[in-house]
């Protein structure tokens, strides 16, 4: 009944749910929702500090201490390989040499769709500099394979657009990526509710990363818990192996023999 743990870059994790830290009402809600989700890897953005405005203000990393969580700095908002690389070099300095990162290079401000040529270029540079790169990508199996061949430690294809909550729009492409990958595949972006996370896990992916689905739920703490259960349920269903689909043939669950006879 056991399941191997999720292993990313040589480190094992009990939870297959990774979460973002944006869009919460406040740090307290962030902390409680993430605690409820059971996530062990949490992604954070890197931004300019507001000079002169935040003296004494709490810091996100006080709420989510790196001693307890694996902090995954990301390059959200970067549109070029150069900016992504710069951002992650800063992140590595900020986190005392920590090298596990989430690379995302965007191509368009309206769709936030990944820019794959820039993503590949940034991945090449980052791997050469010793980063362990988890790469956000489109659901193109060839792109996922190229990222893997460049040395990325995980590929993270989108389920649908970032923050859209549209769920898994192309399960067939995700399936091809999962079937061919030799590194963990984490479905990232587009999850809307618990069933989406379960479907992603039932496809056989290694984990799911989400932010908005939890942060923008009416009750983020409760949704954090729902997502934890959904990821676990989906994983268990994948390992159990679903029954065959029989679209044109019913099959009664009760014995067909031994029915009582009609009277009269």
């Amino acid at each position, binding site marked *: 009944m056991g399941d191997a743990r999720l292993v990313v870059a040589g480190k094992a994790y009990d939870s297959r749910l990774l979460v973002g830290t*944006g869009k919460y009402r406040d740090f307290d809600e962030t902390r409680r929702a993430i605690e409820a989700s059971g996530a062990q890897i949490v*992604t*954070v953005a890197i*931004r300019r500090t507001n000079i*002169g405005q935040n003296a004494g203000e709490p810091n996100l990393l006080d709420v989510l201490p790196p001693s307890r969580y694996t902090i995954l700095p990301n390059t*959200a908002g970067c549109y070029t390989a150069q900016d992504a690389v710069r951002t992650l070099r800063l992140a590595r300095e*900020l986190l005392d040499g920590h090298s596990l990162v989430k690379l995302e290079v965007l191509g368009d401000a309206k769709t936030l769709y990944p820019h794959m040529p820039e993503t590949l270029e940034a991945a090449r540079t980052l791997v050469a500099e010793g980063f362990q790169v988890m790469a956000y990508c489109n659901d193109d199996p060839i792109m996922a394979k190229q990222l893997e061949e460049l040395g990325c430690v995980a590929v993270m294809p989108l389920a649908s657009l970032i923050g859209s909550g549209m769920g898994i729009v192309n399960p067939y492409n995700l399936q091809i990526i999962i079937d061919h990958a030799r590194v963990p595949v984490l479905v990232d972006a587009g999850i809307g509710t618990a069933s989406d996370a379960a479907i992603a896990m039932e496809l056989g992916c290694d984990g799911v990363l989400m932010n908005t689905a939890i942060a923008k739920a009416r009750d983020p703490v409760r949704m954090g818990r729902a997502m934890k259960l959904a990821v676990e349920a989906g994983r268990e269903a994948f390992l159990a192996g679903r029954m065959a689909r029989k679209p044109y043939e019913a099959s009664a669950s009760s014995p067909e023999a031994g029915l009582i006879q009609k009277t009269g």
Partner: protein
Amino acid sequence: MAIHVHLNGAPREFPAPLTFSQLVETLELEGKRLAIERNGEIVPRTRFPEERLSDGDRIEVVIAVGGG
């Protein structure tokens, strides 16, 4: 003596000489988890006490914030 730098995109003037340690202190950011870049290059924290800002430097001071 004063130096003029661009700090997180805005022009700022500081008395010279100024080390990165003194900059962090002046900005009341001591003890915060941050990273600093000067003209596109990381300034390692271990270098803060001796490394000095120069006139015209473009300085970025970043922290971790909520994001997905």
